[in-house]
């Protein structure tokens, strides 16, 4: 065998292990993708099945579109009004969070003042406190406040209040949000403010009309991450909204729907409820998946 030939044989075998490796990679990737797509897709198909179809092969396709499941989930299981609650809580919490965190992050990252360093450390330490570690004392604090209010004014308003829930959501999201925004603000050169000051703008105007517009990409990132965490949260909501049935948020409503449908064997309604909870996040994700997966480099600390 000539030298040339040997080289050709070698590169051929190299190429075939290369192909084998490629095939292996695709098999693994596709398997992982299937384990995600199939269960989620199955829920969508199950949500339009009639109840009798759940007593045969679960992999059978639905016989038709049984929309009644969605009607029942929306009205009988009250998922419609729970969705309204979730929309209110999420929107209010996001508004409070932005209004409070943006100015704070700006000042903490760009101004030197007494106690500033200490505050920065405090907010950093807050990153390590997981909300669910402190959900019981938050509940007891609000419960105690309610007791006092009942004695003093005859009515309570802290627990079972969607607005208070939104405030708690916003407050517990502060450390992560301030950390993320400060990181961005710290990278801006100080020339921007100096130019604005020379043009006669005050501190407030400079912040709102010069700095905030530049932070738009970071602001969008924090809105996306916090929207998902507020919309999907269920432990705090379950704890602080335990009194009134009508005040539930969507995930908590889904949890009770799950328990009710398991015992009453109404599966179609259950899967329709699952679809109702995940559809908004899936639609949002499809629209903004680029920003979401690219905002990740800074989002490494999500709890």
């Amino acid at each position, binding site marked *: 065998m000539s030298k040339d030939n040997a080289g050709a044989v070698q590169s051929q075998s190299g190429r075939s292990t290369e192909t084998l490796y490629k095939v292996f990679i695709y098999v693994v990737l596709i398997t992982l993708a299937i384990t995600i797509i199939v269960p989620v897709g199955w829920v969508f198909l199950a949500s339009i099945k009639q109840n009798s179809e759940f007593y045969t092969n679960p992999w059978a396709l639905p016989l038709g579109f049984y929309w009644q499941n969605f009607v029942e989930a929306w009205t009988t299981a009250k998922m419609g009004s729970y969705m309204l609650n979730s929309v209110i809580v999420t929107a209010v919490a996001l508004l409070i969070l932005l209004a409070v965190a943006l100015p704070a992050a700006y000042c903490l990252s760009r101004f030197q003042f007494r106690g500033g360093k200490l505050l920065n450390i405090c907010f950093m330490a807050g990153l*390590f406190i997981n909300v669910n570690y402190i959900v019981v004392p938050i509940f007891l604090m609000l419960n105690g406040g309610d007791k006092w209010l009942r004695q003093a004014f005859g009515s309570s308003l802290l627990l079972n209040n969607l607005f208070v829930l939104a405030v708690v959501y916003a407050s517990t999201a502060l450390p992560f949000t301030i950390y993320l925004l400060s990181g961005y603000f710290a990278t801006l050169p100080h020339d921007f403010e100096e130019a604005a000051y020379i043009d006669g703008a*005050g501190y407030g105007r400079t912040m709102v009309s010069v700095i905030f517009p530049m932070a738009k990409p970071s602001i969008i990132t924090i809105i996306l991450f916090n929207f998902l965490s507020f919309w*999907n949260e269920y432990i705090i909501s379950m704890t602080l909204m335990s009194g009134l049935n009508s005040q539930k948020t*969507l995930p908590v409503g889904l949890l009770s729907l799950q328990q009710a449908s398991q015992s009453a064997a109404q599966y179609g309604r259950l899967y329709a409820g699952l679809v109702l909870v995940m559809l908004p996040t*899936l639609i949002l994700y499809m629209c903004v998946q680029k920003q979401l997966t690219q905002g990740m480099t800074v989002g490494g600390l999500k709890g």
Partner: protein
Amino acid sequence: MRSNKGRNRFLALCIAPATILFFVFMIIPTINVFRMALTDAGAFTAGKFIGLANFVTLFNDKRFIIAMQNTILLVVVVTIITFALALVFAGILTREKIKGQNFFRIVFYIPNILSVVVIAGVFSAIYDARQLPDGTPFGLLNTMIRLFHDPVTWLDERHVIVSIIIAMVWQAIGYYMVMYMASMSAVSASLYESAGLDGAGRITQFFQITLPLIWTNIRTTLTFFIISTINMAFLFVKAMTSGGPNGASDVALSFMYGQKDANLYGYSMAAGVVIFIFSFALSALVNKVTKRDVLEV
């Protein structure tokens, strides 16, 4: 010149709301965890100081011991599997020319945007162990494995932890994968080229170039992943099994929450103190063990 007073007023106005909310809803509750753990506070008791009595009861409470064991098991196993798989997949997706790379990235991230309650619903269909009257299984997993295995009761005392581990890895893997893809794509391609010329294979390149260069990122995420897993374990257990059967799947936080529901607030907070100390100690330990000299190129 701008007055110092105006500057100070502006700073106070901007910082005060965030600081107040942060103190009222995070710092004070955290202090309360440690304070109440030393009392017999409950729905019907005044909450007088009882020293470390709660902790003595706690460490003799079999259910708490099981809950802590489950927590440690979940943290260790879920962390190892998630990080190993996420790093390998991220390495493959950034280094190789894969058709549909974007598609895979989008799909792998989906579990992360779903509520844990939704995931629990999906997995209750997967793990469903019931059978039709004629004995054919019903759940998605059991119908798939029936060709070579008898139906498994996935959520019984023997299997429940494994079932929860699978669900947790399923949920977490995409998020970390996408994150490592971002940091791996910042590693310059010329490094791999010269390593390739020196005859270093893919696996050598992965361990000698990719991992050392994103090590700082891995360390930070690992520390936070541990705290997050202690919390996620609670979310999964609460939605999937409520700690059952017989407390077999209880984790530290679900134990704490259960004691609050039983109106034993002081006792519940004693468990909270143990969880706080445990998670900080574990994070510090991991931080220490993974310390390496930072490589910069």
